[in-house]
C-alpha cells in the first residue's frame, strides 16, 4: 500500500511530458473522484491503482496510441514498485 498522494505525484510526473502538468494532475484527480479513491491522507490499494491506471491509459490511447500508452503505464508501475521497495 502506498499513500494515494505519493502515487498521484508519481503518475503526474510520468504523464506531464505528454499531457502537461495541469492536465496530468486534473485527469488523475478526476479519475480518482470517479473511482471513489480518496486522495488526502489515505492509502491506495493495488486494485485501485490498477483501475486508475487503466482509466488514464484509455484516455492516453487517443493522444499517443495504445502501444505508447501501455509503455507509459508500465513505466509508472515500475516507478511505483521502485518507490515501494526503497
Amino acid at each position, binding site marked *: 500500500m502506498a499513500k494515494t498522494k505519493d502515487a498521484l505525484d508519481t503518475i503526474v510526473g510520468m504523464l506531464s511530458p505528454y*499531457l*502537461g502538468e495541469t*492536465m496530468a494532475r*486534473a*485527469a488523475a484527480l478526476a479519475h480518482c473522484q470517479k473511482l471513489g479513491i480518496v486522495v488526502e491522507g489515505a492509502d491506495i490499494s493495488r486494485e485501485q491503482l490498477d483501475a486508475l491506471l487503466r482509466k488514464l491509459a*484509455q484516455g492516453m490511447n*487517443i493522444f*499517443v496510441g*495504445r502501444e505508447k500508452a501501455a509503455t507509459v503505464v508500465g513505466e509508472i508501475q515500475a516507478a511505483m514498485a521502485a518507490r515501494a521497495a526503497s
Partner: protein
Amino acid sequence: MSRSARTDLVFLVASLLAVVPFVLQLAGRPGGPSGDEVRLYVGNAAKLAFLAIAAGAAIGSAKQFERDNPMRGTWRLFAAGFVTFAAGQAVLGTYQAVLRLPSPFPSAADAFFMCSYPLLLAALFRAIRAYGATGYPIGTAFERAGTGGAVAAVAVIVGYPTLKPVAAIPAPPLETFLNVAYPVLDLAVLVPVAILLRIAVRFRGGEVWKVWAGLLAGFVLMCIGDILFAHFAALGRADLDPLIHVMYILAYAAIARGALGQYQLLK
C-alpha cells in the same frame, strides 16, 4: 536538447529563412531580378516542402494509430486534406517555377484547395469528438458548443462586411465565387479550431499541446492569408503579395510541425 526542442528549432530556422526574401521586399529591399528569382523558388519550395512533411506525418500517424482508435480516422482525413492541399500547391509551383508563367486564377490548383477543406473540417470535428470521449477534464459538450457558436457568430459579424466589397467587385463569376469561398471556408474551419484550441490549452507544457498549437496556429494563419489574398486581389494591391506569401509559408510550417509532433508522439 530533446528531440522535440530540436524539431522546434529546425522548423523555426527553416521558416524564418523562407520568409526573409519576402520580408525584405516588404521592407523596400526587393533585390532586383535575382530577388524575384529567389522568392519564386524559395517560396514555392518552402510551401511544397512543409505541406509534404505535413502530409507524410499525417499518413504516418494514421498508420501508427490502432484500427479501432478514433484518431486513426482523424489523421487519415488530415492526410487526405494535406495531400490534396499539397497537390494544389504543386500545380501553382509548376506554373510559376517550371513553366515560368503567372499562375492563372482560377486554375486546377483551386479545385484541389477546394476539395481539401471538407476533409480538414471533418478531421477537426472528428478530433473534437475523440477528445471528448477520453474521459479527461476537457470541458463539457455544452461549453464546446458555446465556443463554436460564439466563434461562428463572430465569423458572420466580421466576415459579412469584410467580404461584401469583395463580392461586389466586377469579376468572372468563378473568380468571385473563389474569392469569397476561400475566406468563408477558412472562417468555417476556425469554428472547430477554436473549440480544439480551448481543449488543447489545458495540455500546455506537454507534447499534446505542441501538436495542436502547431496545427491550429497554421489554420489561423491560413485564414488570415486567404482574407488578405481576397482583399489585395480586389483592391489591386499586388505590392502587398509578399505578406500573403509570408502568411502561407508560416501557416504550412506550423501545420507541418504540428503533424510531425503527432507522428513523433506515436513512435
